[in-house]
Protein backbone atom coordinates (compact mmCIF):
# COMPACT_ATOMS: atom_id res chain seq x y z
CA UNK A 1 0.00 0.00 0.00
CA UNK A 2 1.31 3.47 -0.83
CA UNK A 3 1.00 6.63 1.25
CA UNK A 4 -1.57 7.85 -1.24
CA UNK A 5 -3.64 4.74 -0.72
CA UNK A 6 -3.39 5.12 3.08
CA UNK A 7 -4.64 8.70 2.82
CA UNK A 8 -7.42 7.57 0.48
CA UNK A 9 -8.46 4.89 2.99
CA UNK A 10 -9.10 7.26 5.90
CA UNK A 11 -12.87 7.32 6.45
CA UNK A 12 -14.57 10.57 5.51
CA UNK A 13 -15.77 11.25 9.06
CA UNK A 14 -12.20 11.08 10.39
CA UNK A 15 -10.61 13.49 7.92
CA UNK A 16 -10.92 16.60 10.07
CA UNK A 17 -9.52 14.85 13.11
CA UNK A 18 -6.77 13.36 10.97
CA UNK A 19 -5.44 16.57 9.45
CA UNK A 20 -5.65 18.52 12.71
CA UNK A 21 -3.89 15.77 14.68
CA UNK A 22 -1.18 15.41 12.07
CA UNK A 23 -0.63 19.16 11.90
CA UNK A 24 -0.36 19.38 15.68
CA UNK A 25 2.07 16.48 15.70
CA UNK A 26 4.30 18.33 13.24
CA UNK A 27 3.96 21.80 14.76
CA UNK A 28 4.98 20.54 18.18
CA UNK A 29 7.79 18.28 16.98
CA UNK A 30 11.34 19.62 17.10
CA UNK A 31 12.27 16.92 14.58
CA UNK A 32 9.86 18.53 12.12
CA UNK A 33 12.21 21.53 12.10
CA UNK A 34 14.60 19.38 10.12
CA UNK A 35 12.29 17.89 7.55
CA UNK A 36 13.23 18.32 3.88
CA UNK A 37 12.32 21.70 2.51
CA UNK A 38 10.13 20.22 -0.24
CA UNK A 39 7.94 18.65 2.45
CA UNK A 40 7.47 21.91 4.35
CA UNK A 41 6.85 23.81 1.12
CA UNK A 42 4.22 21.28 0.08
CA UNK A 43 2.45 21.61 3.44
CA UNK A 44 2.50 25.40 3.25
CA UNK A 45 1.23 25.31 -0.30
CA UNK A 46 -1.76 23.15 0.64
CA UNK A 47 -2.36 25.26 3.76
CA UNK A 48 -2.25 28.51 1.79
CA UNK A 49 -4.77 27.17 -0.72
CA UNK A 50 -7.03 25.89 2.06
CA UNK A 51 -6.70 22.29 0.94
CA UNK A 52 -4.58 20.80 3.71
CA UNK A 53 -7.71 18.95 4.86
CA UNK A 54 -8.06 17.26 1.45
CA UNK A 55 -6.84 13.70 0.95
CA UNK A 56 -3.87 15.04 -1.01
CA UNK A 57 -3.09 17.42 1.85
CA UNK A 58 -3.37 14.65 4.38
CA UNK A 59 -1.05 12.53 2.28
CA UNK A 60 1.57 15.30 2.53
CA UNK A 61 1.05 15.50 6.28
CA UNK A 62 1.38 11.74 6.63
CA UNK A 63 4.62 11.74 4.68
CA UNK A 64 6.03 14.52 6.84
CA UNK A 65 4.80 12.88 10.05
CA UNK A 66 6.40 9.56 9.11
CA UNK A 67 9.65 11.36 8.33
CA UNK A 68 9.72 13.39 11.57
CA UNK A 69 7.84 11.24 14.08
CA UNK A 70 7.38 7.74 12.68
CA UNK A 71 6.30 6.07 15.94
CA UNK A 72 3.97 8.88 16.97
CA UNK A 73 2.41 8.95 13.52
CA UNK A 74 1.61 5.27 13.75
CA UNK A 75 0.18 5.53 17.23
CA UNK A 76 -1.87 8.53 16.13
CA UNK A 77 -3.42 6.40 13.39
CA UNK A 78 -4.00 3.33 15.53
CA UNK A 79 -5.02 4.89 18.85
CA UNK A 80 -6.36 8.39 18.29
CA UNK A 81 -8.00 7.78 14.94
CA UNK A 82 -8.73 4.11 15.72
CA UNK A 83 -7.38 2.93 12.38
CA UNK A 84 -5.02 0.09 13.39
CA UNK A 85 -4.98 -1.50 9.95
CA UNK A 86 -3.81 1.71 8.32
CA UNK A 87 -1.21 2.09 11.07
CA UNK A 88 0.06 -1.37 10.19
CA UNK A 89 0.26 -0.42 6.53
CA UNK A 90 2.13 2.73 7.48
CA UNK A 91 4.59 0.70 9.53
CA UNK A 92 5.38 -1.36 6.47
CA UNK A 93 6.27 1.65 4.37
CA UNK A 94 9.94 2.32 4.19
CA UNK A 95 11.17 5.56 5.71
CA UNK A 96 12.02 7.95 2.94
Amino acid at each position, binding site marked *: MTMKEIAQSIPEEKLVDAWKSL*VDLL*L*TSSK*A*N*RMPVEMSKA*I*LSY*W*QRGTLNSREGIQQLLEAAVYAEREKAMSLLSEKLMLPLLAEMLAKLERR
Partner: protein
Amino acid sequence: MNKLTKFGIEFVPQEAYWKTVFYSIQSERRGFDYLWITDHFNNRNVYATLAAIAIYTNRIKMGPGVTNPFLSHPVVTAQAVASINEMAPGRVVCGMGAGDATTLRMLGVSPRRVLASVREATEMIRRITAGENVQMKGVFSVAGAKLNFKVKERIPIYVGAQGPKMLALAGAIGDGVLINASSKKDIEPALSHVREGAAEAGRKTDEIDVAAYTSFSVDKEEKKAIEAACPVVAFIVAGSPQEILERHGIPQADAQSVRDALGRKDWGRAFSSVTSEMLSAFSICGTPDMCSEKIITLLKLGVTQFVVGSPIGPNVRKSIDAIGERILPQFK
Protein backbone atom coordinates in the same frame (compact mmCIF):
# COMPACT_ATOMS: atom_id res chain seq x y z
CA MET B 1 -16.68 49.56 21.92
CA ASN B 2 -14.63 50.71 18.97
CA LYS B 3 -15.40 48.23 16.20
CA LEU B 4 -12.32 49.36 14.32
CA THR B 5 -9.91 47.89 16.81
CA LYS B 6 -6.95 46.24 15.15
CA PHE B 7 -5.53 42.94 16.29
CA GLY B 8 -1.92 41.96 15.99
CA ILE B 9 -0.09 38.77 16.82
CA GLU B 10 3.54 38.24 17.73
CA PHE B 11 5.64 35.28 16.70
CA VAL B 12 9.09 34.42 17.94
CA PRO B 13 10.88 32.68 15.05
CA GLN B 14 12.61 30.14 17.25
CA GLU B 15 11.52 27.12 15.23
CA ALA B 16 11.73 26.21 11.56
CA TYR B 17 10.54 28.95 9.21
CA TRP B 18 7.61 26.90 7.95
CA LYS B 19 5.94 26.82 11.38
CA THR B 20 5.97 30.61 11.69
CA VAL B 21 4.65 30.88 8.14
CA PHE B 22 1.97 28.29 8.92
CA TYR B 23 0.75 30.31 11.93
CA SER B 24 0.94 33.52 9.92
CA ILE B 25 -1.31 32.15 7.17
CA GLN B 26 -3.69 30.95 9.87
CA SER B 27 -3.65 34.34 11.63
CA GLU B 28 -4.46 36.16 8.40
CA ARG B 29 -7.31 33.76 7.73
CA ARG B 30 -8.63 34.22 11.26
CA GLY B 31 -8.84 37.99 10.93
CA PHE B 32 -5.69 39.38 12.48
CA ASP B 33 -4.49 42.66 11.01
CA TYR B 34 -0.81 42.72 11.97
CA LEU B 35 2.02 40.23 12.40
CA TRP B 36 4.94 41.22 14.57
CA ILE B 37 8.08 39.08 14.33
CA THR B 38 10.62 39.42 17.11
CA ASP B 39 14.25 40.18 16.30
CA HIS B 40 16.89 38.33 18.32
CA PHE B 41 20.19 37.24 16.81
CA ASN B 42 19.85 33.72 18.21
CA ASN B 43 16.54 32.95 16.50
CA ARG B 44 15.72 32.74 12.79
CA ASN B 45 16.43 36.03 11.07
CA VAL B 46 13.47 38.38 11.26
CA TYR B 47 13.66 39.57 7.66
CA ALA B 48 14.13 36.10 6.18
CA THR B 49 11.05 35.07 8.14
CA LEU B 50 9.10 38.12 7.01
CA ALA B 51 10.07 37.47 3.39
CA ALA B 52 8.62 33.97 3.57
CA ILE B 53 5.47 35.26 5.27
CA ALA B 54 5.09 38.01 2.67
CA ILE B 55 5.04 35.44 -0.11
CA TYR B 56 2.46 33.20 1.56
CA THR B 57 0.02 35.92 2.71
CA ASN B 58 -2.09 38.51 0.93
CA ARG B 59 -3.64 40.98 3.32
CA ILE B 60 -2.04 41.04 6.75
CA LYS B 61 0.48 43.75 7.65
CA MET B 62 3.83 42.72 9.03
CA GLY B 63 7.08 43.92 10.42
CA PRO B 64 9.83 43.43 12.95
CA GLY B 65 8.40 43.73 16.42
CA VAL B 66 10.77 45.14 17.35
CA THR B 67 14.22 45.62 15.90
CA ASN B 68 16.84 47.92 17.38
CA PRO B 69 19.45 50.31 15.99
CA PHE B 70 22.38 48.72 17.82
CA LEU B 71 22.74 45.42 16.02
CA SER B 72 21.62 46.47 12.55
CA HIS B 73 22.51 49.91 11.26
CA PRO B 74 19.31 51.86 10.51
CA VAL B 75 20.31 52.03 6.83
CA VAL B 76 20.34 48.23 6.68
CA THR B 77 16.98 48.11 8.44
CA ALA B 78 15.58 50.60 5.93
CA GLN B 79 16.89 48.44 3.08
CA ALA B 80 15.37 45.31 4.68
CA VAL B 81 11.87 46.69 5.21
CA ALA B 82 11.93 48.31 1.78
CA SER B 83 12.80 44.94 0.23
CA ILE B 84 10.03 43.17 2.13
CA ASN B 85 7.67 45.88 0.90
CA GLU B 86 8.37 44.74 -2.68
CA MET B 87 6.98 41.34 -1.72
CA ALA B 88 4.08 42.73 0.31
CA PRO B 89 3.35 46.22 -1.05
CA GLY B 90 1.74 48.49 1.50
CA ARG B 91 1.75 45.78 4.14
CA VAL B 92 5.04 46.51 5.83
CA VAL B 93 5.55 48.26 9.14
CA CYS B 94 8.68 48.59 11.23
CA GLY B 95 8.91 48.28 15.00
CA MET B 96 11.95 50.04 16.45
CA GLY B 97 13.05 49.98 20.06
CA ALA B 98 15.88 49.81 22.54
CA GLY B 99 16.58 46.11 21.97
CA ASP B 100 16.76 43.24 24.37
CA ALA B 101 19.56 43.94 26.84
CA THR B 102 20.27 40.26 27.50
CA THR B 103 20.89 39.23 23.91
CA LEU B 104 22.73 42.46 23.09
CA ARG B 105 25.03 41.83 26.06
CA MET B 106 25.85 38.39 24.68
CA LEU B 107 27.34 40.15 21.67
CA GLY B 108 29.23 42.69 23.70
CA VAL B 109 26.90 45.45 22.60
CA SER B 110 26.24 48.09 25.25
CA PRO B 111 23.51 50.37 24.00
CA ARG B 112 24.33 54.01 24.61
CA ARG B 113 22.30 57.13 24.00
CA VAL B 114 19.30 54.91 23.56
CA LEU B 115 16.69 57.62 23.08
CA ALA B 116 18.80 59.52 20.57
CA SER B 117 19.56 56.27 18.76
CA VAL B 118 15.91 55.32 18.38
CA ARG B 119 15.00 58.85 17.35
CA GLU B 120 17.71 59.02 14.71
CA ALA B 121 17.05 55.49 13.46
CA THR B 122 13.38 56.29 13.01
CA GLU B 123 14.15 59.45 11.07
CA MET B 124 16.78 57.74 8.97
CA ILE B 125 14.54 54.80 8.01
CA ARG B 126 11.68 57.12 7.24
CA ARG B 127 13.73 59.36 5.00
CA ILE B 128 15.57 56.58 3.21
CA THR B 129 12.39 54.64 2.47
CA ALA B 130 10.87 57.89 1.22
CA GLY B 131 13.59 57.97 -1.42
CA GLU B 132 15.74 60.72 0.05
CA ASN B 133 19.48 60.96 -0.23
CA VAL B 134 20.17 61.14 3.48
CA GLN B 135 23.00 62.92 5.19
CA MET B 136 22.90 62.87 8.97
CA LYS B 137 25.35 63.37 11.79
CA GLY B 138 24.68 62.04 15.24
CA VAL B 139 24.87 58.67 16.94
CA PHE B 140 24.66 57.31 13.40
CA SER B 141 26.30 59.28 10.69
CA VAL B 142 25.65 58.82 7.02
CA ALA B 143 27.01 60.88 4.20
CA GLY B 144 24.68 60.24 1.30
CA ALA B 145 22.57 57.16 1.91
CA LYS B 146 20.08 56.44 -0.85
CA LEU B 147 18.41 53.27 -2.07
CA ASN B 148 18.79 52.30 -5.71
CA PHE B 149 15.13 51.36 -5.86
CA LYS B 150 11.88 53.14 -5.08
CA VAL B 151 9.59 52.31 -2.19
CA LYS B 152 6.13 53.10 -3.45
CA GLU B 153 4.33 52.84 -0.13
CA ARG B 154 5.04 54.64 3.11
CA ILE B 155 6.33 52.32 5.83
CA PRO B 156 4.88 53.26 9.22
CA ILE B 157 7.32 53.10 12.11
CA TYR B 158 6.19 51.95 15.53
CA VAL B 159 8.32 52.71 18.56
CA GLY B 160 8.56 49.91 21.10
CA ALA B 161 8.48 51.51 24.53
CA GLN B 162 8.22 50.80 28.22
CA GLY B 163 9.90 53.63 30.16
CA PRO B 164 8.48 57.18 30.40
CA LYS B 165 11.02 58.83 28.11
CA MET B 166 10.75 56.24 25.35
CA LEU B 167 6.95 56.38 25.59
CA ALA B 168 7.06 60.16 25.21
CA LEU B 169 9.42 59.79 22.25
CA ALA B 170 6.99 57.35 20.68
CA GLY B 171 4.24 59.92 21.11
CA ALA B 172 6.45 62.53 19.47
CA ILE B 173 7.75 60.61 16.45
CA GLY B 174 6.00 57.24 16.06
CA ASP B 175 3.30 56.32 13.61
CA GLY B 176 2.47 53.93 16.40
CA VAL B 177 3.68 52.84 19.78
CA LEU B 178 4.11 49.27 20.94
CA ILE B 179 3.60 49.35 24.69
CA ASN B 180 5.10 46.32 26.30
CA ALA B 181 2.43 45.75 28.96
CA SER B 182 -0.63 43.66 29.68
CA SER B 183 -2.52 45.41 32.46
CA LYS B 184 -4.45 48.58 33.04
CA LYS B 185 -2.04 49.60 35.80
CA ASP B 186 0.83 49.74 33.31
CA ILE B 187 -1.01 50.84 30.17
CA GLU B 188 -2.74 53.81 31.81
CA PRO B 189 0.44 55.64 32.92
CA ALA B 190 2.16 54.60 29.69
CA LEU B 191 -0.58 56.26 27.67
CA SER B 192 -0.25 59.49 29.57
CA HIS B 193 3.46 59.60 28.67
CA VAL B 194 2.61 58.95 25.02
CA ARG B 195 0.03 61.75 25.11
CA GLU B 196 2.49 64.13 26.72
CA GLY B 197 5.10 63.36 24.09
CA ALA B 198 2.56 63.82 21.32
CA ALA B 199 1.32 67.11 22.75
CA GLU B 200 4.84 68.47 23.09
CA ALA B 201 5.47 67.64 19.46
CA GLY B 202 2.21 69.30 18.45
CA ARG B 203 0.58 66.01 17.49
CA LYS B 204 -2.80 64.56 18.31
CA THR B 205 -2.87 61.19 20.04
CA ASP B 206 -5.36 59.85 17.53
CA GLU B 207 -2.65 60.11 14.87
CA ILE B 208 -0.81 57.36 16.74
CA ASP B 209 -1.74 53.69 16.64
CA VAL B 210 -1.49 52.72 20.30
CA ALA B 211 -0.71 49.04 20.56
CA ALA B 212 -0.75 47.02 23.75
CA TYR B 213 1.89 44.36 23.21
CA THR B 214 0.73 41.78 25.71
CA SER B 215 1.79 38.45 27.01
CA PHE B 216 -1.25 36.37 26.13
CA SER B 217 -2.44 32.83 26.67
CA VAL B 218 -5.85 31.46 25.81
CA ASP B 219 -7.37 28.01 26.03
CA LYS B 220 -10.84 26.63 26.61
CA GLU B 221 -9.48 25.40 29.95
CA GLU B 222 -8.26 28.20 32.19
CA LYS B 223 -5.75 25.96 33.93
CA LYS B 224 -3.99 25.10 30.67
CA ALA B 225 -3.87 28.75 29.63
CA ILE B 226 -2.28 29.65 32.97
CA GLU B 227 0.26 26.84 32.76
CA ALA B 228 1.36 28.12 29.37
CA ALA B 229 1.62 31.71 30.63
CA CYS B 230 3.70 30.94 33.73
CA PRO B 231 7.13 30.56 32.05
CA VAL B 232 6.76 33.86 30.19
CA VAL B 233 5.48 35.66 33.28
CA ALA B 234 8.32 34.26 35.39
CA PHE B 235 10.87 35.87 33.08
CA ILE B 236 8.95 39.15 33.03
CA VAL B 237 8.86 39.20 36.84
CA ALA B 238 12.58 38.46 37.02
CA GLY B 239 13.34 41.40 34.76
CA SER B 240 10.91 43.87 36.30
CA PRO B 241 12.23 46.76 38.38
CA GLN B 242 11.05 47.19 41.97
CA GLU B 243 8.85 50.14 41.02
CA ILE B 244 6.80 48.02 38.62
CA LEU B 245 6.46 45.17 41.10
CA GLU B 246 5.25 47.62 43.75
CA ARG B 247 2.73 49.09 41.34
CA HIS B 248 1.17 45.65 41.13
CA GLY B 249 1.47 44.83 44.82
CA ILE B 250 3.89 41.98 44.20
CA PRO B 251 6.03 41.38 47.31
CA GLN B 252 9.77 41.62 46.69
CA ALA B 253 10.26 38.23 48.35
CA ASP B 254 7.89 36.54 45.89
CA ALA B 255 9.69 38.08 42.94
CA GLN B 256 13.04 37.11 44.42
CA SER B 257 12.04 33.47 44.75
CA VAL B 258 11.17 33.41 41.03
CA ARG B 259 14.51 35.09 40.21
CA ASP B 260 16.46 32.69 42.39
CA ALA B 261 14.84 29.63 40.85
CA LEU B 262 15.46 30.94 37.33
CA GLY B 263 19.06 31.64 38.29
CA ARG B 264 19.44 28.01 39.36
CA LYS B 265 17.65 26.92 36.17
CA ASP B 266 15.14 25.22 38.42
CA TRP B 267 12.35 25.78 35.91
CA GLY B 268 9.75 23.78 37.80
CA ARG B 269 10.21 25.83 40.96
CA ALA B 270 10.42 29.09 39.03
CA PHE B 271 7.21 28.54 37.11
CA SER B 272 5.31 27.19 40.10
CA SER B 273 6.37 30.28 42.08
CA VAL B 274 4.40 32.50 39.70
CA THR B 275 1.47 33.85 41.70
CA SER B 276 -1.98 34.91 40.54
CA GLU B 277 -0.95 38.55 41.18
CA MET B 278 1.98 38.10 38.82
CA LEU B 279 -0.21 36.51 36.16
CA SER B 280 -2.73 39.28 36.42
CA ALA B 281 -0.05 41.98 36.29
CA PHE B 282 1.97 40.65 33.41
CA SER B 283 -0.32 38.60 31.21
CA ILE B 284 -3.75 38.22 29.79
CA CYS B 285 -4.64 34.60 30.20
CA GLY B 286 -7.62 32.35 30.63
CA THR B 287 -10.62 31.22 28.62
CA PRO B 288 -11.71 33.23 25.55
CA ASP B 289 -14.41 34.99 27.59
CA MET B 290 -11.98 35.88 30.36
CA CYS B 291 -9.47 37.23 27.85
CA SER B 292 -12.16 39.24 26.05
CA GLU B 293 -13.07 41.02 29.27
CA LYS B 294 -9.47 41.99 29.86
CA ILE B 295 -9.10 43.18 26.27
CA ILE B 296 -12.16 45.40 26.69
CA THR B 297 -10.55 46.99 29.75
CA LEU B 298 -7.47 47.93 27.74
CA LEU B 299 -9.42 49.19 24.73
CA LYS B 300 -11.41 51.51 26.95
CA LEU B 301 -8.16 53.20 27.95
CA GLY B 302 -7.47 54.20 24.36
CA VAL B 303 -5.59 51.21 23.01
CA THR B 304 -6.20 50.96 19.25
CA GLN B 305 -4.30 47.77 18.47
CA PHE B 306 -4.29 44.72 20.71
CA VAL B 307 -1.26 42.49 20.17
CA VAL B 308 -1.48 38.85 21.16
CA GLY B 309 2.05 38.10 22.32
CA SER B 310 3.85 35.01 23.54
CA PRO B 311 3.00 32.38 24.50
CA ILE B 312 -0.43 32.76 22.73
CA GLY B 313 -1.58 29.50 24.32
CA PRO B 314 -0.65 25.92 25.20
CA ASN B 315 -1.36 24.87 21.61
CA VAL B 316 -0.69 27.83 19.33
CA ARG B 317 -2.78 26.53 16.43
CA LYS B 318 -5.80 25.90 18.61
CA SER B 319 -5.36 29.21 20.40
CA ILE B 320 -5.27 31.16 17.13
CA ASP B 321 -8.48 29.38 16.12
CA ALA B 322 -10.05 30.18 19.49
CA ILE B 323 -9.15 33.86 19.17
CA GLY B 324 -10.52 33.96 15.63
CA GLU B 325 -13.75 32.22 16.53
CA ARG B 326 -14.48 33.49 20.03
CA ILE B 327 -12.66 36.79 20.59
CA LEU B 328 -12.15 38.76 17.39
CA PRO B 329 -15.81 38.73 16.31
CA GLN B 330 -16.66 40.76 19.42
CA PHE B 331 -14.41 43.58 18.30
CA LYS B 332 -14.72 43.58 14.52
